[in-house]
């Protein structure tokens, strides 16, 4: 899909790695959730958006979860900060007890 949009193979690899990390987060924290992929149009550019959402336990301290090395699941703790570095835009909303939604975007160069 990223290749069809004219993304380079390098960018497509970065997007794939980000999707994989987001899916892994959902599985380890919320068990169940969904990932939506879609194209987005900016002013002069096209982009690719990945929306990962779940109805899991939520993240009590989002700022802490975005720091390198922070993990509550015994993983490497690179998930969210790593995904943020891979993509151009990163947005997270989380409510304890209600779930988490992470939206990331990559713009075509």
């Amino acid at each position, binding site marked *: 899909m990223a290749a069809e949009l004219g993304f380079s193979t*390098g960018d497509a690899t*970065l997007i794939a790695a980000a999707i*994989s*990390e987001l899916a892994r987060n959902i599985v380890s924290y919320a068990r169940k959730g969904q990932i939506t992929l879609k194209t987005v149009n900016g002013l002069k550019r096209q982009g690719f958006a990945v929306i990962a959402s779940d109805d899991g336990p939520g993240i009590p301290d989002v700022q802490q979860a975005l720091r390198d090395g922070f993990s509550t699941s015994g993983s490497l703790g*690179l998930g969210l900060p*790593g995904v943020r570095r*891979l993509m151009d835009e990163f947005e997270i909303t989380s409510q304890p007890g209600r779930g988490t939604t992470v939206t990331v975007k990559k713009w075509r160069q």
Partner: protein
Amino acid sequence: MEVPILKQGAFLIATFQAALSDADLKHLRMGLVQQVVRFRSRAVIVDVTAMDVMDSFASRTLREIAQMIRLRGAETVIVGIQPEVAFAMVQLGLTLEDVATALDLEEGLAYLNEKFKTAN
């Protein structure tokens, strides 16, 4: 998809044919360690040329494989990490720490042959 493990003299070569699931990676981890024991191998080459996504689980498993094999007294060389994959790994903060890497299978074999030249 299972990863074939080839015996090449004192070395074992495991070549990924495609992206692997978590279960495949765990299976490979066990399989490789067992084969190293069975064949008394000196070293293992893991060829990841066909891998187009390396996430935190995959890189951790590769690191674990290398550590287990080192405990058996053998060495691991990971070969064929694609440039895009290397880029994504660095951005994600993934490292293979002190596991040896080489450009491709040929370079990996050359590295091991040089290393074990005096021993053989």
